[in-house]
């Protein structure tokens, strides 16, 4: 048995009321979405908020629509199972529908939300354990200690970004709409994720994610999200990558974006892919892109399995996906 610590629970009926409750609670309040990440972390003693504010009754956080600019807007409280099945998402952002459908398992996808997945806490083999297990090593940077067991001497927590939807959202240039009692702002998903695992999400106290906006896709876009884990269900990714290719009518690449996750806390946007602009997708190009991805992306021993093996997997996934798009 893993009992939850004591907390108060609020179930506001409007975004305004939720924002006020979160503002009043400050650092002692947390947003509760599907609970599949936060409640496990509370059971593991990784946080002890005084107040949880449930977003399950906020109409402002629901719905999937297309705005005047043709962008897809998905409410933060939409469930991953619904996003995976949603016709608009499947048609306009298939990589997001695919990623949502690959997260965890059916029950967790019936509970977990897009906002929750975007804000998922980072994970590490030394962190997501019972307090007794962690204590036997003296804790670590993220919990009860001041050393890193992943990078000896490291000053930043390098726990792994594990939310399946984050890499494709970054590759598609998506932004999050953040709302608090006093303000609202739009932040790119890339900027929302912090580079230190102790502050994995750059939300201000009192802020919550209302929606995620994915810009309209140009014609001839191809996108994919690829995830490697030992099991096809249940597991968090051990390494994952999103690819987005925009091509002209002649098949020449106009833009190629590759974003990897489960390396450290932040998604890794692979640099220098502009040099492939104007080329067509060929097996040679697939190998060259895969090599560049492998060179830049270095998994750490922060989750299970050999980092070198995970690194090779990453390259293989990229090469195979581009091979499937040859022509």
């Amino acid at each position: 048995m893993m009992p939850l610590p004591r907390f108060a629970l609020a179930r506001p009926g409007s975004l305004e009321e939720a924002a006020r409750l979160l503002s009043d609670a400050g650092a002692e309040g947390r947003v509760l979405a599907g609970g599949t990440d936060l409640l496990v972390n509370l059971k593991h003693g990784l946080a002890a908020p005084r107040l949880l504010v449930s977003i399950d009754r906020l109409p402002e956080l629901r719905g999937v629509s297309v705005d005047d600019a043709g962008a897809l807007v998905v409410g933060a409280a939409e469930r991953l199972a619904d996003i995976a099945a949603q016709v608009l998402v499947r048609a306009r952002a298939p990589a997001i529908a695919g990623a949502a459908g690959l997260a965890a398992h059916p029950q967790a996808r019936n509970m977990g939300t897009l906002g929750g997945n975007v804000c998922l806490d980072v994970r590490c083999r030394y962190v997501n354990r019972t307090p007794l297990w962690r204590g036997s090593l003296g804790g670590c940077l993220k919990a009860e200690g001041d050393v890193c067991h992943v990078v000896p001497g490291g000053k930043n927590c390098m726990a792994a970004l594990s939310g399946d939807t984050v890499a494709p959202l970054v590759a598609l240039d998506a932004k999050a709409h953040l709302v608090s009692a006093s303000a609202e702002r739009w932040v790119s998903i890339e900027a929302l994720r912090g580079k230190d695992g102790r502050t994995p999400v750059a939300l201000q106290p009192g802020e919550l994610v209302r929606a995620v906006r994915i810009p309209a896709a140009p014609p001839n876009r191809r996108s994919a999200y690829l995830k490697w884990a030992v099991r096809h269900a249940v597991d968090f990714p051990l390494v994952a990558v999103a690819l987005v290719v925009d091509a002209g009518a002649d098949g020449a690449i106009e833009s190629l974006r590759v974003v990897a996750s489960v390396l450290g806390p932040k998604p890794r946007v692979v640099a220098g892919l502009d040099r492939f602009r104007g080329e067509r997708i060929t097996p040679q190009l697939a190998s060259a892109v895969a090599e560049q991805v492998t060179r830049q992306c270095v998994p750490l021993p922060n989750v299970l399995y050999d980092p070198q093996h995970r690194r090779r997997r990453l390259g293989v996934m990229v090469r195979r996906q581009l091979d499937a798009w040859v022509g």
Partner: protein
Amino acid sequence: MSEGSDAQPISLTVNGEPVTVLATPSETLLEVLRYRLGLTGSKQGCDKGDCGACTVLVDGRPVLGCLTLATLCDGAEVRTVEGLSTAAGLHRVQAAFVRHGAAQCGFCTPGMLMSAVRFLETREQARAPTREEVAAALSGNLCRCTGYAKILDAVIDAAAELGTRSVPGSNDAEGAR
């Protein structure tokens, strides 16, 4: 589980019966079902969302009882393994599990059954499900005994039996003879 001052009454419909029960904010639906209502069919396995032994249907959808706060289920309809059989006998999925020897230690069985029931009630009825579809529907339920083969056989068999009728199998114990 002690009745602290923060326990509040919530109203649920559990297996068709309206009930009012106390729950604290940090009590899970699984804890309320097991320790306040005595419905110990749903199992407390890993208690952190990995194993699916606590799977119950809330407003028709399979969820993890161990990570669902009971207070947030106020007003909801909850179905557990206890609600599957009737006086007439076992639910047809339970009967198929028995025929195929799909339960060994039995700890995963209540959660497996709830995922299977949801799958059979919502699937496309016009054709038989593939083994892959059944496996995907049950992929959030871990079994450490059977190797899954007999569980998949049982659900496919139950689907075939349902396929001969035009009704979905909700709480339908007729096929269990």
